[in-house]
């Protein structure tokens, strides 16, 4: 990372000129006093604290509630760039849903030999209980977050698909609210596409997937593991914004073949459960028997079409990091088209020749756990010490199928505001996708995560990353 100049910066060209989407913003920030901006930053932090927009960090008792640092420089995407991303994401999400339907029904893709059978059947995120189950509206992934990185003017890669319970959308919404409050003048200068409809769209999209047994207006509830979960704020935020009940497992029970919540007036049935609880914890009778978070029997109600579970159980088989490398084939198989958005080249350590390559080049690669998330347990080769490299190599040899490796990408940078002025930092992008039986809806923009430490490529909030407001410009 010693040579910072090689990275593509989204705001400034190599000659220091401001790139097109940032034209107006560049003029604005040039005229701004650094002192005023510093004051605004402090104000924003006060607002976040008062609003309680915090997240919990696992394994860190002292900082039990932390703010995700917010940077005031927006990340700006042109209308043309977005149009291409949107098209690529739609294609990908459509393929993911077709793949899930196939995997849990006829498994044509396995028969055709396009994806190896043992990768599915032997995979711990494959849910045999879902075989032959038809989710209401045939939607598996109601909410998807696609992680995208950029390495050059026209080079975007999909880094990860999040098809289980992607989080971060509350930050997308709150970041925009904060920017609107702090710098209203920016938004009258530049036409930025609105994101505030997301909760209403989410509700509509979930309601459109209501199960056959739903009578009248669908009742939607958000299932949270509870107040100690790292994303609890988001769960309550979304429930609030959708006008849905926020429930925990012990509020629910099965009554007359429906999932019902305990209200002050007795038990009332729920039609759509937007669960933010992992598959394993969903139902102690059908999955992990020691789970306290779920509802005994909810999966049986699901199978008899008494409730919609969003996302459907078992979607992890589509965003598993070992499956990821097959996504281009999966897209081609179900859509008959080439993937519009590229995958990052990936070595599957389960394959002996790949493993050899990965072990030989560990210092240049990023190695991830197949089932990991949140940046926990990954190795960033170029940033690791000799000791870290050799101890990771041991783990890798012990369980090769548990890992994949990718080249260290030259992630694009966007400036952040620091005391010494603007400074480039690496970013990624997570657009949020809603899937209903009739449409795929993508909120323009998404969550931009930014590595606040100079040179760092790890953007995860749990690892010290921050966020930015993401602007998609109107045509």
């Amino acid at each position: 990372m010693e040579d910072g100049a090689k990275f593509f910066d989204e705001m400034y060209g190599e000659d220091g000129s401001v790139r097109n989407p940032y034209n107006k913003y560049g003029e604005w920030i040039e005229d701004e006093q650094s002192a005023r901006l510093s004051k605004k930053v402090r104000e924003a932090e006060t607002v976040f604290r008062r609003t309680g927009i915090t997240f919990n960090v696992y394994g860190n008792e002292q900082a039990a509630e932390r703010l995700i640092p917010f940077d005031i420089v927006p990340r700006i995407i042109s209308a043309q760039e977005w149009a291409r991303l949107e098209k690529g994401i739609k294609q990908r999400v459509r393929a993911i849903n077709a793949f899930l339907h196939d995997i849990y029904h006829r498994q044509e893709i396995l028969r055709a030999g396009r994806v190896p059978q043992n990768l599915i059947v032997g995979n711990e995120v494959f849910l045999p209980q879902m075989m032959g189950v038809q989710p209401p509206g045939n939607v598996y992934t109601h909410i998807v977050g696609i992680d995208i990185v950029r390495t050059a003017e026209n080079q975007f890669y999909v880094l990860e698909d999040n098809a289980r319970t992607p989080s971060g959308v509350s930050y997308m919404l709150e970041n925009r609210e904060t920017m609107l409050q702090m710098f209203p003048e920016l938004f009258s200068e530049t036409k930025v596409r609105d994101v505030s409809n997301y909760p209403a769209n989410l509700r509509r999209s979930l309601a459109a997937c209501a199960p056959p047994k739903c009578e009248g207006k669908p009742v939607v509830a958000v299932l949270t593991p509870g107040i100690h979960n790292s994303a609890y704020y988001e769960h309550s935020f979304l429930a609030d914004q959708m006008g849905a009940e926020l429930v925990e497992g012990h509020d629910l029970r099965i009554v007359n073949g429906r999932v019902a919540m305990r209200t002050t007036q007795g038990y009332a049935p729920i039609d759509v459960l937007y669960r933010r609880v992992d598959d394993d914890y969903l139902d102690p009778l059908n999955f992990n028997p020691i789970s306290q978070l779920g509802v005994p029997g909810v999966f049986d109600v699901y199978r008899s079409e008494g409730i919609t579970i969003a996302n459907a159980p078992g979607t992890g088989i589509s965003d598993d990091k070992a499956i990821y490398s097959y996504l281009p084939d999966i897209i081609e198989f179900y859509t008959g088209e080439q993937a519009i958005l590229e995958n990052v080249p990936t070595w599957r350590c389960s394959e002996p020749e790949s493993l050899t390559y990965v072990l030989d080049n560990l210092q240049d690669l990023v190695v991830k756990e197949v089932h990991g998330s949140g940046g926990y347990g990954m190795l960033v080769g170029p940033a690791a010490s000799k000791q870290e490299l050799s101890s990771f190599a041991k783990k890798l040899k012990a369980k090769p199928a548990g890992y994949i490796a990718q080249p260290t990408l030259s992630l694009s940078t966007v400036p952040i505001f620091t005391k010494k002025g603007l400074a480039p930092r690496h970013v990624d992008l997570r657009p949020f996708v809603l899937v209903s039986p009739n449409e795929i809806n993508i909120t323009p923009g998404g969550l931009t995560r930014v590595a606040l430490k100079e040179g760092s490529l790890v953007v995860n909030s749990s690892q010290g990353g921050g966020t930015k407001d993401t602007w998609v410009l109107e045509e």
Partner: protein
Amino acid sequence: MLGKTAGDLFWMFRCLERIENTSRLIDAGFRIALTRHTSAAEEWASIISTAGAREQFLECHNEFDASNVVDFLLRDTANPSSVVSSMEAARNNARLVRTALTREVFEATNECWMTLKELLKKPVKERELPDALSTIRRQAALVRAALHGTMLRNDIFNFGRIGTFLERADNTARILDVKYYVLLPSISLVGSHLDNVQWDMILRSVSAQRSYRWLNGGDINPKGIADFLILDGRLPRSLAYCFINIVDNLEYLATNYGERHDCHEQANALLDRLNSNTIDNIFEIGLHEFIEEFVADNNALGQQIEMDYRFNG
């Protein structure tokens, strides 16, 4: 509304009410300690009893001296009713029921929590105590203001209010329970200076010393005080006032849900007992007995409400 949400609202406002009441109690005790050095320990002991924390206190302390008592009531997390513990619980409940609160109520609660956390990070020095106590009350008042100014008058509001008034009735009754003897006629005949201080202390602990004076001029007498705190529906911390409001809010729920429960009967019976009583009558049955029974019935009502509206299952 979820039963759990109703329960969390109920407890959120009980805890907020408790914070205010505790700070009033400390205020009253502090004043006595400043003016009556000899009986100070006794006063602090009775304040700890009023807070219902005598056993816990004696587990960690031997003496009822000012700094121990104040710290125990304000900051000690081993004391579940301390201001810090109650604030933590209130804010946790607020986070749990965030979807039921307006943004303003949540933010006022959160800000109250942040302010008190900072304020009570270290033991409060004697010279800073009056300021600290008024900050606590002011922050709690801001939450109440947000509640009144922004919340819909629906079941959410009702459960919060019921929590407030049950806690307040309990608090006022406890003050009377611990201090009843200074209000008894036999002792009041003495009319010593000590009694005056005691009476003043009772009024102060419910922030009613000025109201009482408005209504009665300079004539402070024990029967008048008991009457004021138990039966006067104009005093916002009297038992009667609390029960008028509890019954009111329960009636809203009954109308709103189209269903009556045992708790309605119990609350009405308690209100009737207050309405149809005179202070002479209460002294005749025995002030202590009356109050003891009231505390028990008030507790039982809380449990009945919890059951009838399925707070826990």
